[in-house]
């Protein structure tokens, strides 16, 4: 039988998705269901002094209006520390020095205080979504307005120095005081990245219904287990009473990674009203009520000798978080690991702003951080008149000097070599503005990308039924990554079955636990569990006296074995252990992006005509879904480089482009050729598959590779994204 792992298998969930067979949270329609929509605050700081909902309540179809005035009594909707700890608001709070008054996170509808514009201040429940919207438009609110701040202001801001976040110290100083020595070249620049919105295709929605004491949520989340935990805590019911289902997720990118209040609120309302309730986030809510990537400002200083050996790397990030929350962009992560400078000064300063709480967004930290770091390297290369690829080769980090550990495996040099060859990288210094073709200036740029490879324990259940059904169940979610497919591939290989004979069921908290799909850990967490389940199955069969080991010679199917032995059903579970404990190693993925841009300066037209990315993500389980992940990441990078930018109104401190008409992301016509190359060497010290996750590594570095190419084409250095025509002219 042909091995399924390593083969470019089509997505098994592809057909249901494109034919409408896949049911998303908002597709669920239950008997007697109600619909809920929230009202957003129009001010960014202050207090609600009056909220008048009578005419909303009188609107035809409206069933209830909840706000801070009645939610506590009517919904038992109460802010509590145990709840905060499980919510998106809390992520990062532990990095803030205690002592200083640590904020409590915010929970909508619990107080009249306003912390940011767009904050939910009321929710209308109605017989239809139209009636709910209609009701929302009829609520009258009077505010007392305070001064708000949504931009960084070095002098006026109260800067906090966070301690430990994302597995790293946020204040690292190694070696001497950061000074450039005699004879060294240096660059020192400030880089800025804008606020970015996740805006997955599927807006979040939670449909909750109660059956006696049991509540079921049809939800759109990257983590059903974490959601169950939060919702149970909020409802004050045992978690066995809560079931969260998220079989399909129409993209998350981090916006559905943490748990947000709406997920519990739907259940509270359904309980209070005794009917199923769907709480629907609007496109605008997706910009405000489920996180975003904050803007950043980063100072980078590099000092190197004339041969390009980097001795000093200083990377100081100034980033915001919300008034009540904790998440901030840990921009310095890659600076700790790449390029091995003997003197490191990588620090973060955080300031509280009247913005919604930021949250992880596809490669948080690494994405904005790599824009600064990889731009600075390019600037250094130009100062040295050196090929930027050669500069990176000369500073290859042969080990993880920050953690003082070896890499489990690191084929970055191979990525450089294969990527450059496929791209036809010039391999010499190309001065800016030296290539013109017709009306276009042409430029080449490159950047390194790196991303950690975590893993957490997961459990997978396998059910084999004599009628020929093999069912795989785990609470892991497939957020478009390909989890359905690679799980089937794994079990197919172990049991000698065709993928088509396997039924994979995901995203249900009643299935065995698996971690939230985030930080590129699902492959390395779930596949080993699936394999364990297959091993348990064999053991169990052996115990029953029916040993099964498929060989090319014996083509007896496992089902005929069950039939022969009169076993109607076998159910087993397998659990993985998370990070390997036997090695003290750093587990990372690496890669390099090579980009060609074309700029028609007369008419300000910028095109990313070609991208080649070579990646070392260990063994590739499914080249097709893996390539699609990386391409998606690169498209994100193109959007970040050229278009994406959340913009606040300068007077009202309110996000104005909270919709897809004004918040620009690339369309198909913006995307040129993308060529993805995998080194495909197994990282056997990581797991038995040798596979590392790859959902995020495509994003970091891409924006810098593009702006580096723009510099090569035009001689104009873009240090503040996005690189629009206006910025380039």
């Amino acid at each position, binding site marked *: 039988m042909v091995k399924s792992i390593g083969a470019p298998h089509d997505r098994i969930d592809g057909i249901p998705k494109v034919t409408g067979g896949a049911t998303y949270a908002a597709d669920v329609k239950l008997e007697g269901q109600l619909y809920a929509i929230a009202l957003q605050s129009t001010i960014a700081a202050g207090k609600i002094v009056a909220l008048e909902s009578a005419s909303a309540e009188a609107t035809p179809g409206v069933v209830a209006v909840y706000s801070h005035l009645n939610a506590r009594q009517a919904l038992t909707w109460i802010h509590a520390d145990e709840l905060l700890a499980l919510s998106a608001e809390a992520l990062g709070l532990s990095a803030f020095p205690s002592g200083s008054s640590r904020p409590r996170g915010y929970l909508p509808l619990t107080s009249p205080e306003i912390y940011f514009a767009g904050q939910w201040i009321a929710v209308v429940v109605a017989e239809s979504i139209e009636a709910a919207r*209609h009701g929302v438009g009829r609520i009258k609110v009077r505010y007392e307005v305070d001064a708000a701040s949504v931009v960084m202001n070095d002098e006026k801001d109260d800067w906090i120095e966070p301690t430990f976040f994302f597995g790293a110290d946020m204040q690292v100083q190694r070696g001497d005081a950061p000074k450039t020595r005699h004879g060294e070249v240096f660059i020192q620049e400030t880089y800025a990245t804008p606020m970015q919105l996740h805006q997955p295709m599927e807006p979040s929605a939670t449909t909750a219904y109660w059956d006696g004491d049991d509540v079921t949520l049809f939800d759109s989340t990257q983590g059903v287990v974490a959601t169950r935990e939060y919702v149970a805590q909020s409802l004050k019911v045992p978690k066995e009473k809560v079931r969260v289902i998220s079989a399909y997720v129409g993209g998350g990118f981090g916006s559905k990674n943490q748990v947000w209040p709406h997920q519990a609120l739907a259940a509270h309302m359904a309980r209070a009203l005794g009917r199923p309730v769907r709480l629907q986030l609007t496109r605008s809510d997706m910009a405000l009520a489920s996180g975003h990537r904050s803007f950043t400002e980063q100072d980078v200083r590099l000092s190197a000798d004339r041969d390009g050996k980097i001795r000093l790397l200083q990377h100081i990030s100034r980033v915001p978080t919300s008034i009540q929350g904790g998440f901030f962009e840990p921009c310095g992560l890659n600076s700790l690991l790449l390029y091995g400078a003997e003197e490191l000064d990588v620090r973060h300063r955080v300031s509280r702003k009247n913005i919604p709480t930021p949250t992880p967004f596809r490669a948080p930290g690494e994405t904005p951080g790599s824009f600064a770091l990889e731009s600075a390297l390019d600037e250094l290369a130009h100062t040295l008149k050196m090929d930027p690829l050669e500069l990176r080769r000369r500073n290859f980090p042969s080990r993880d000097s920050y953690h003082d550990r070896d890499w489990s495996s690191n084929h970055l040099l191979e990525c450089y070599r294969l990527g450059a060859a496929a791209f036809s990288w010039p391999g010499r210094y190309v001065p800016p503005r030296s290539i013109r073709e017709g009306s276009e200036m042409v430029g080449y740029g490159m950047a390194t990308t790196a991303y950690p490879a975590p893993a957490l324990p997961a459990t997978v259940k396998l059910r084999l039924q004599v009628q020929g059904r093999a069912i795989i169940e785990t609470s892991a979610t497939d957020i478009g990554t390909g989890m359905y497919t690679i799980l089937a591939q794994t079990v197919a290989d172990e049991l000698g079955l065709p993928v088509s004979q396997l039924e994979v069921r995901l995203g249900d908290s009643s299935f065995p636990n698996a971690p939230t799909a985030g930080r590129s850990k699902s492959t390395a967490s779930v596949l080993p569990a699936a394999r364990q389940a297959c091993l348990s199955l064999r053991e169990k069969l052996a115990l029953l006296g029916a040993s099964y080991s498929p060989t090319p010679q014996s083509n007896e199917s496992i089902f005929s074995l069950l039939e022969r032995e009169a076993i109607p059903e076998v159910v087993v579970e397998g659990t993985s252990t998370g990070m390997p404990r036997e090695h003290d190693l750093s587990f990372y993925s690496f890669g390099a992006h090579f980009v060609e841009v074309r700029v028609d300066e007369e*008419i*300000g037209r910028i095109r990313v005509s070609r991208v080649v990315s070579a990646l070392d993500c260990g063994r590739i389980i499914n080249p097709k879904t893996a390539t699609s992940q990386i391409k998606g990441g690169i498209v994100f990078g193109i959007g970040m480089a050229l278009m994406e930018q959340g913009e606040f109104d300068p007077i009202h401190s309110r996000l104005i*482009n909270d919709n897809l008409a004004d918040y*620009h992301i690339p*369309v198909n016509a913006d995307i040129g050729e993308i060529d993805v190359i995998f080194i495909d060497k197994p990282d056997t010290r990581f797991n038995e598959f040798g596979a590392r996750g790859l959902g995020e590594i495509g994003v970091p570095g891409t924006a810098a590779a593009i702006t580096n190419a723009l510099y090569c084409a035009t001689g104009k250095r873009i240090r503040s994204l996005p690189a629009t*025509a206006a910025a380039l002219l």
Partner: protein
Amino acid sequence: MEPFEFVRPTDIQDVLVAIRRPGSRILAGGTSLVDLMKLGVEAPSTVVDINALPLSMISVEGDALSIGALASNSDVAVHRAVKQHAPAVGQALLSGASGQIRNAATVGGNLLQRTRCTYFRSRDWPCNKREPGSGCAAIEGVNVGHAVLGISRSCIAVHPSDIAVALLAVDAYVHLASVAGERRIAIGDFYCQPGDTPSVETVIGPNELITKVEIPITNLNATSSYLKLRGRASYEFASASVATAILRDGDIVIDAAVAVGGLGTVPWRNRTAEKLLIGKKLTQESILAFCDALFAPASATPSNTYKLALARGAIHRTLRGGAEW
């Protein structure tokens, strides 16, 4: 969305009567109207669906090309007579929106679509166009995409339509009907600059229906082309656009029309400036002189001044004949 009454007359006279009701709005493709109703910006008490009227013909009538008000943007864009007699019009339409929207959107609706000013599109902001007298949030706000030509202290919103720019370059007419009769207005006289009344966008009366658009068939119009510049390759309104038509005798320009979009509160054209091109060769200098005259009245903010550079580039590019869209 506020509840409304819905009528769908099949006869043009019935439509003309129905639209006399106060608070009524005509529904064609609905791609602009329904969107604004959902945003709460439009709240008609009666929606008069005109899709049953026979107004989607595209035909040559004598020395004019006639395009019915209900002709879809997609159909007009690829029509042979349009490509032959007014290529800029087809190109402008194809450059707009997306395939699905162009299939639903009509020519009449396109001419009357509202501005894309973000502040206009949400009831939460002060906006003189939406709510006369409430102020203009854009002037002190984010105005990267706003107008640099024809602005006033009340409003700086850009006119969004691509086809209107092309129609201005080819000297088209808009035909209107009401119970009182029919009339024809040159597209150059159709749109109103905001002045003190930005809520008044055109000269069309509340009881009037657009029946068709008429384009003169001329040698000049047959040379027309459209170039649109924007932040991404498709599915986006113009940062700057230009419709040009030019007739030459040898090297000498004998007739020229240049209309600009994305910069003005209305589609922009200056016939006096065009005279600077006529009787001369097209050179860097003559084009520069023309642009200087065309943009002399411009008033930009630091964040939207790039539009002038883009428009100048687009004019140079199209007049020198390298237009591609």
